[in-house]
């Protein structure tokens, strides 16, 4: 008997799976947009100051700045429910913490390794946490936060608390194996998680095109049936709009979703990166054409926010940042006895 011919497997898969709606750009009120502007400006000025303190030798080790990517953290986190949703990210974490309303003083003091730092000086730039704000770090191993974030989502589902986990990672981490191990389980168990790929185009010095066979990273969940959306990560309102669509999907119990945020970091990978892998012109062109803060500033001006008002905001933020820097420089280092505390929770 003749066998039925094998299905042609090279044909593209046609799916009629449900997909999320195309996100709409968020329509912000003047107050909301002003708030976004303030938060993004705070991150920008904070990071500039951190870079300066690094140069002066107050901050040691690795220090990864978020300059250029501000719209992502601010836009996405503004849509979360701070009471129940959780956030986790990698080592480029200052911006996410500031966007969560964590006091700049304790962040800066952690960067300078002081007892008043959010991790009592024992964590540093890459290892900061605020369980109170449901911010779970701050993880130094590229991609680890994806599996850990999937665990946070597992806990939300297990506890039936209605929370959603948001796990940020970069284009570099998106090539780590554990990301796909996590995707598989998250979709299998319909875990409430938003995977946010902050595609800033460079994994340290290697561009996405040089490292990723599928460089459209929002498609990376396809073989796990996780839908993905590509978002303009330089537009805070697009970010917020995408977050709302993603949250609707996840909160409806449809499982995980991927947001690829197309963004750009202006500074090197870390403070010690001379960034020779891209041209000065490339960076300048992004700054000129699509700076997320300038974009909002223009929209605020359209909304009749005066230059004087904007200047006042700028002055206020500089004051907050300078105070945090002064605090971080002057507050004492941890007591020597702190060396041995917190290794274990219990005594045995």
């Amino acid at each position, binding site marked *: 008997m003749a066998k039925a011919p094998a299905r042609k497997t090279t044909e593209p898969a046609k799916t009629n799976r449900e997909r999320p709606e195309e996100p709409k750009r968020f329509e912000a009120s003047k107050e909301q947009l002003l708030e976004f502007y303030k938060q993004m400006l705070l991150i920008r000025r904070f990071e500039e100051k951190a870079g300066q303190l690094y140069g002066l030798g107050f901050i040691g080790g690795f220090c990864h700045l978020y300059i250029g990517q501000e719209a992502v953290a601010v836009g996405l986190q503004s849509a979360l429910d701070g009471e129940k949703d*959780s956030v*986790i990210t990698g080592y480029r974490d200052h911006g996410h913490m500031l966007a969560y309303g964590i006091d700049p003083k304790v962040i800066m003091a952690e960067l300078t390794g002081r007892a008043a*730092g*959010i*991790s*009592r*000086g*024992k*964590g540093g730039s890459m*290892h*900061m*946490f*605020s*369980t109170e704000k449901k911010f*779970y*770090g*701050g*993880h*130094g*191993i590229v991609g*680890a936060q*994806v*599996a*850990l*974030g*999937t*665990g*946070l*989502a*597992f*806990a*939300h589902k*297990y*506890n039936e608390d209605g929370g959603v*986990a948001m796990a940020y990672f970069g284009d570099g981490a998106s090539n780590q*194996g*554990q990301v796909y*191990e*996590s995707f*598989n*389980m998250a979709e*299998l168990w319909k875990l409430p998680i938003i995977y946010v790929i902050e595609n800033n185009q460079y994994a340290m010095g290697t561009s996405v095109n040089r490292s990723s066979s599928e460089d459209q990273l929002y498609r990376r969940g396809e073989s796990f049936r996780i839908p993905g959306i590509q978002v303009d990560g330089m537009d805070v309102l697009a970010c917020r709009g995408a977050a709302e669509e993603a949250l609707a999907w996840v909160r409806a119990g449809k499982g995980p979703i991927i947001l690829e945020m197309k963004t750009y970091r202006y500074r090197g990978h870390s403070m010690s990166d001379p960034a020779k892998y891209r041209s000065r012109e490339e960076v300048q062109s992004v700054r000129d054409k699509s700076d997320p803060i300038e974009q909002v500033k223009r929209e605020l001006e359209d909304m009749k926010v005066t230059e004087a008002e904007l200047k006042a905001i700028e002055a206020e933020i500089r004051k907050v940042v300078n105070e945090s820097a002064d605090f971080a420089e002057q507050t004492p280092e941890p007591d020597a006895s702190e060396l041995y*505390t*917190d*290794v*274990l*929770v*219990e005594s*045995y």
Partner: protein
Amino acid sequence: MAIELKMPALSPTMEEGTLAKWLVKEGDTVKSGDILAEIETDKATMEFEAVDEGTIAKILVAEGTDNVKVGTVIATIAGEGEDASAAPAPAAAPAPTPAPAAAEPAAGEDGGPKKADSGTKQLASEKAATVQDPAIPEGTEMVKVTVREALRDAMAEEMRKDPRVFVMGEEVAEYQGAYKVTQGLLEEFGPKRVIDTPITEYGFAGLGAGAAMGGLKPVIEFMTFNFAMQAIDHIVNSAAKTNYMSGGQMRCPIVFRGPNGAASRVGAQHSQNYGPWYASVPGLIVIAPYDAQDAKGLLKAAIRSEDPVVFLENELMYGRHFEIPQLDDYVLPIGKARIVRSGKDVTIVSYSIGVGVALEAAETLAGEGIDAEVVDLRTLRPLDTATVLESLKKTNRLVVVEEGWPVCSIASEIAAVVMEQGFDDLDAPVLRVTNEDVPLPYAANLEKLALITADKVVAAVKKVTYRG
């Protein structure tokens, strides 16, 4: 000539089983692939298939018979043309004698074929402690259970008590555990709390650590700790360091458990003791129990701990029986060694499966007039150095027995501690009895040579007591 059907070994460590059911009767014709019988071990029920064709001549072991030793002739098959009814019973149907654990099967010597054997036979022991744990109240009723059951009971009891506790790993739920340690948990606690994962160690170790950070109390089973090397980043970098890095703000109360150390004839990639690896990491608790009582009491303590725990079991010990106290809530302290045999001439320090080897050696030594004290470390981190040093003070001689590699081992650590803190109590150098410094070989004879034996312990003790 009638073909003898022998009780098969269904796993590398199986020595006997129950002939649960015959699916054929005398006179039935069978061909290869037919299922002849169902055989039960402590782990599972397996089907026994025919390989040869012919007629069932004689059933020699009735269904329902327990403790049928591997290799016992259970039936005969008459080949084509043979008269099944005339097929004689095998001349000397071996009575269910004890498995030839000690007898060296000398290849060729008796002309018989060399059977699969294992060096691990020299390891697994049911030697019980001769000193009762002082933690057990006087007059407590003792019951005999396997290490496997003790571990399962520990998990079940803690799951009943604390709804945050869940068990996750490969084959832990529907399959009832690759080594049947989680048997029955799915039935009692349901799929929300007993979760089968894909084969994805790095992923589920990270997921577990994240769930612990998020407030749950995961028990993550690795099918063996060999596979945990794929996940070691989350054990070390995510679980162990988080409390410190966060200044005590974020905890990771998780238990990573599973079999560790050499198993039987599984070769180098499946036979390794990770005790020294994890014990070197600040921020982790590392436990490696020997008997059922410690397995239960310490696993319960591990699940209750607010710290991340690596709980190292041993596959060869799962089926071993030990007495354990019949108590409603038997929890042992973490970080406390236990004197399992008291003596005055020499201290033998060990942990996990090595304790049985040490106890066996101590028995031999007793016959030769050497009174050995055996200390079971039980917890590898934090290490109970006080108990070791206290014992040394009494005996002035020390041997460490470890089923694992010698370099950078727990044995090395004990030797260093004793040098630093017990030097004046030493009447002889500390000796280490460990596995050979090679990947574990497959060949039975090489495997035997690579692993520790009670004889090697005896020899080391004689050296330090200047009696050899």
